């Protein structure tokens, strides 16, 4: 679940866990409505944002807690705790208190605790938010690996789109308390269903205009400065509608030789050239938009655009999506 803060991700997660009441509708788990099952009987594992490891218990006691309340025998319990700790590579830390662990280690323990009682569904509420970038990337991989090994479902809340894209099979993009789009990461990025998703996932250039006509799957859009372009109509249906046209920065072409025959081109003025190592990022003024970004790979034959020069830019009509205004 991905979305800006205040979009309802955590509330939704809390409803799954049973800490918030659903006012309407059913929450189905394996085909069974769990609306009226109290949290402690749902058997859903949960990893909290601040880990919520019990500070007065050792790591092993923390892990044994869900087994104890399920009245699992001592020997069995110890074996399971040991296995869970080893799974997250924390086997030697059973005797420590949570306060004696680093953030990443606490994160692992919290994960092990949510998994130790063999929950089929594990909820995670921005579990990596407090870690530094490198550790976060490492843990993303780790969580994904463990989930795949155990064959469990993980519902993962984050506001970090990279995290959502790299970890998920399916991403639900939240805004204003609604799911804007539920799709696999590639689809989400390549074909966003509305301008919010396009804007929220990845970098995006937006041009505003009015639909002139739609014929054989191509929309002709007149931009605000009067120029015409061809677009892929996603959620525009008829001529006269206002629309926002979305183009990914890496799909913009300015090498004339690579232009599609017959494609519409726009003239642009180069405002800024930013060297980013692996990429060049060029800011252009296009059709009155000063923040039109073009990203090009740093290849030996790549042209470095000079600020102040005027160029023509173009793209495939299918990469240019006419979305809601």
């Amino acid at each position, binding site marked *: 679940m991905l979305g800006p803060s205040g979009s309802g991700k955590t509330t939704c997660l809390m409803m799954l*866990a049973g800490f918030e009441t659903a006012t309407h509708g059913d929450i189905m788990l394996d085909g069974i409505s769990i609306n009226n099952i109290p949290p402690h009987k749902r058997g859903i594992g949960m990893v*909290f944002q601040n880990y919520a490891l*019990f*500070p007065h218990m050792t790591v092993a006691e923390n892990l044994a807690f869900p087994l104890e309340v399920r009245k699992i025998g001592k020997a069995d319990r110890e074996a399971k705790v040991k296995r869970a700790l080893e799974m997250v590579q924390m086997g030697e830390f059973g005797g420590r208190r949570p306060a004696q662990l680093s953030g990443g280690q606490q994160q692992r323990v919290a994960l092990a605790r949510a998994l130790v009682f063999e929950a089929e569904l594990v909820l995670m509420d921005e579990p990596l938010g407090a870690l530094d970038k490198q550790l976060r990337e490492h843990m993303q991989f780790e969580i994904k690996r463990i989930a795949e090994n155990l064959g469990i479902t993980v519902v993962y809340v984050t506001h970090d789109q990279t995290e959502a894209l790299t970890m998920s099979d399916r991403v639900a993009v939240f805004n204003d308390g609604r799911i804007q789009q539920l799709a696999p990461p590639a689809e989400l990025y390549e074909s966003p269903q509305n301008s919010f998703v396009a804007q929220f996932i990845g970098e995006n250039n937006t041009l505003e205009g009015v639909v002139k006509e739609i014929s054989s799957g191509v929309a002709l859009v007149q931009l605000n400065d009067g120029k015409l372009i061809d677009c892929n109509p996603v959620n525009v249906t008829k001529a006269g509608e206002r629309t926002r046209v979305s183009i990914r920065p890496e799909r913009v072409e300015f090498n004339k030789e690579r232009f599609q025959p017959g494609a519409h081109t726009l003239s642009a003025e180069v405002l800024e050239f930013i060297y980013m190592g692996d990429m060049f990022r060029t800011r252009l003024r296009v059709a009155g938009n000063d923040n039109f970004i073009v990203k090009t790979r740093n290849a030996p034959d790549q042209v470095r655009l000079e600020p102040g020069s005027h160029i023509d830019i173009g793209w495939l009509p299918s990469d240019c999506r006419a979305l809601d205004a």
Partner: protein
Amino acid sequence: MSNTNENGAMLTADGQPLKRSLATALRRQKIRALLLISPLLIFVLITFLFPIGSMLFRSVENNIVVEILPETVVALATWDGKSGELPDETIYAAFAGDLQRAAKNKSHTRVGLRLNYEKSGSASLFKKTARQAKKWDLETDAPFKEKLIAAHKGWGEVEIWQTLKTHSSRYTAGYFLNAVDMRKTQNGPEMQPENRQILIKLFQRTLIMSLLITVACILLGYPVAWLLANLPRSQSNLLMILVLLPFWTSLLVRTSAWKVMLQQQGVINDIFVALGMIEESGRLVMINNQFGTIIAMTHILLPFMILPMYSVMQTIQPTYLQAAKSLGATNWTAFWRVYFPQSVPGIGAGSILVFILSIGYYITPEIVGGNKGVFISNRIAYHIFQSMNWGLAAALGAILLAVVLILYWAYDKVVGIDNVKLGG
């Protein structure tokens, strides 16, 4: 590149060894810090440590007899008190001289009063004899043995001389012995007569009732603190005002209010009678006894329990309870296994505060305690204001202080003072 001297020690830019110049810099800081706190330090010294020290000193100080009857004390050194015989004429003569001088500067009453703590009747004995002693001529009126016994037959008893000898030392453990219902005699310490043994009982009562009050405060305060920490802000602010309200009214007013509530013709009895729960003739006695003291003091000390508990509970995040429940714990298990252990430091802090406050409480037991509900502090006050036996009062206070320190130490051993939190 780096500066070092021949010993390999690091040097600063001006050639000083780094260690020394760092120490100088830090010393300057320390002196400045000390200067900043010095007003407080002096204030505490003058108003707190010094008075307490001097009070504690009084519990062993015993120079009245030595100072007022110096020659008698010297003479008594040769007398064997255990022989059962009266002292000889030299001692009587020395005493007559001391007594005359004491009577002239009116200090004889102090000796009388001092010995009266040990042997009742001594005060009047000194007062009466001193009146006559003023008229004696020390050169010609000998022998004084007969003269003193004629002045008051008390001087013919061995006991008064034994008491005088026993308590003539400059420092004494006598007050401490008195404080634990013993007394100093010529044969060493022994228990007080049965009818004078009240202080140990009072100490026990003080401790037991303080414990009861502490337990009552925990039971009543815990739910309130929980609500304070977990209600929405606007409601918890209101509740906090209610908790703090007692602090804004005078202690005396609150205690007197309990008197109105609890007395036999008071509000609670009236309600019970009106509801037919008790007979008019069977009105409950709820005041001027231990019950009244416990009720009133629990009420008065409750905020001291709630506030530390609250500040600890505030730091316990609600996610712990959610986590416990998501792991399969019922509400009760989640509370008992996860929330409660984390709130123990608050209970500890509150308990220490309430227990120590109640052990030394004075006003409330004085007003609502009657005879059976008074504490050791009321006895201390009695010895300060009425019997004027400051030595005994100081000894009682010192014992009380020691008890508190021992309990504090025991608590540290068992629970650990590090586990006590007043917040954060």
